[in-house]
């Protein structure tokens, strides 16, 4: 019994200083496909839960979150479609997307309706993790 009290104390203490946040599942808006392109005003972001623009990727994400009716959740994103390849390093550095998300390149932004199903049927041979690896390797060179 003597070990349980310190362990319980650690659990309670950790509850107030954990590196992850609590979500209300009812308000989550899971994103499955993210499209990003450079526009005249900066970066445009298109997802199933909405679209937004900002001067940078980070600002565009913040704008999307501000304008959404719930909690936009990028951790479920399965596909990243980049219309402007030069935008990719910025997206990767943000760490917003899961490494296993598949990476596609496209000419232009498209309607997100049905895009996830289409891309799931046409898997990419490159993931966000691969792109990160390439980015790191180029950085080392």
């Amino acid at each position, binding site marked *: 019994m003597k*070990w349980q009290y310190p362990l319980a104390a650690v659990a309670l203490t950790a509850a107030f200083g954990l590196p992850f946040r609590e979500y209300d599942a*009812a308000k989550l808006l899971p994103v499955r496909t993210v499209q990003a392109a450079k526009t005249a005003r900066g970066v445009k972001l298109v997802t199933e839960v909405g679209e937004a623009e900002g001067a940078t990727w980070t600002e565009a994400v913040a704008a999307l979150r501000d304008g959404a009716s719930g909690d936009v*959740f990028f951790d479920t994103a399965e596909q990243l479609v980049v219309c402007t390849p030069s935008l990719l390093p910025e997206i990767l550095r943000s760490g917003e997307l899961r490494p296993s998300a598949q990476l596609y390149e496209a000419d232009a932004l498209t309607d997100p309706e049905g895009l996830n199903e289409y891309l799931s049927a046409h898997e990419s041979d490159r993931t966000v993790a691969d792109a990160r690896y390439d980015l790191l390797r180029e950085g080392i060179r």
Partner: protein
Amino acid sequence: MDERHGAVTDEHISAIFSGAGDFNRRALRIGTHIIYVYAIDGLTSGGDISELVVKPLLQDTRAGTPDELYDRALHSTVYNSVAVPCKDCADAAMKLVNGFTVVLFGDRAIAFETKTGEKRAPAAPEVENTVKGPKDAFTETVRTNTSLLRRHLRTPALRLYETQVGRRSLTNVTVAYIDGLTDPTLAERMIDRLGEIDVDGLTTPAAVEEYVTGSRPTAFPLLQYTERTDRFAQGLLEGRVGLLVDGLPLGYLAPVDLGMLMTAPEDRGTDYLSASFLRILRYLALLIGLMLPGLYVAMAAFHPEMLPTALLQAIIESKHAVPFPTIFEILGLLAAFELLQEASIAMPHSVGQSLSIIGGLVVGTAAVEAKIISPAALIVVAAAGIAGFALPGRSFADALRLWRFALTVLASFAGLFGLTLGALCLLVHLSGLTSLGVEYLAPFSRVSGSREIVRPRLFRQKRRDPALHPLDPKNQR
């Protein structure tokens, strides 16, 4: 033994039972002497007293002193097979409350066993149901229980140490073990513990369990109870010590460890493949019953990224329009489930079924349709509850119910981190428990621990559990 130790007089015995409405006293004249016959109505058989005790005494027309009458009654005239001289007044009183008829000859008394045959007959077990096993469950009468045990274990080496516990209840308690097989220190420890108990009464299962085990601060059972005589007998054959308490239709077995609690008596009633499959399912049920609500809270509230998107989507949709956070939803449902269970136990059997239908189906369905709870949360709590019912020991399942709550609360504070810490606490807690000196997790600390999870073929299971230190380690050639 000095049979004359302590004077037994009519005044003393009558004074002890003064005011007792069920106390019967009759004076009989034999020649010029008066002898007294005492019995407790309800505990004794009036017919047996008349036929086996009173009639032979009155038919003995030979004259003599009270001492001669006493000797003749003890050695020849009375038919009764059990005749015990009373040492003193207290001894006579004890015999009376145990169903004996006491006959006083001057200042000496003899107790004749005339116990009534009115007692509940052995019936099929109500909780530990069996398909193929014997249907002779324990009753409230310890002597009936020892006779049932003798029928399962004909060995003369079966030892039944009898003692009384409880200052006022004077409960007859029997310690059962097999001489030459059971580690004698286990039996000694059990007998010593019974000797140390100095309480008013030992009349409830909780009293037996807490006083015998030393009331350790744990919800986990340190004695295994069973209402099945075959399971009790099997326990003794494994080298464990049994405990039978008068008034309780149960037999207790010690030591106990986690592996024993996860073993159902039906495991030996079916083939080893089916039994092993069921045991694996039971261990899965243990994990599901214990962890699932906490895991759901941790995943839904803290780590939704760990869920497959389709599953997360399903959870989100099921949570849509539900006003309560996941943690309150789960804790509320767990509490409702426990309340429903308690209400079902308290109700008569027929009403209990209706209550389950109303509570589980009607209220549950209505609550989901009214968007008060989400279907996913209901499924999680129901699955955990059903998994808990799949465990063979109720006391063990009850302990897990408490820990399920604790783990869910910890998961609501710190997600998977809290759940893991809670599980570690549980592991540490279980590791620290012992039952009659045997570690609770003993079977899993050995290389052969897998034997607890799968049931080996019986002809390969030649050795008894080494943790019990049996004197005879092999159970077959």
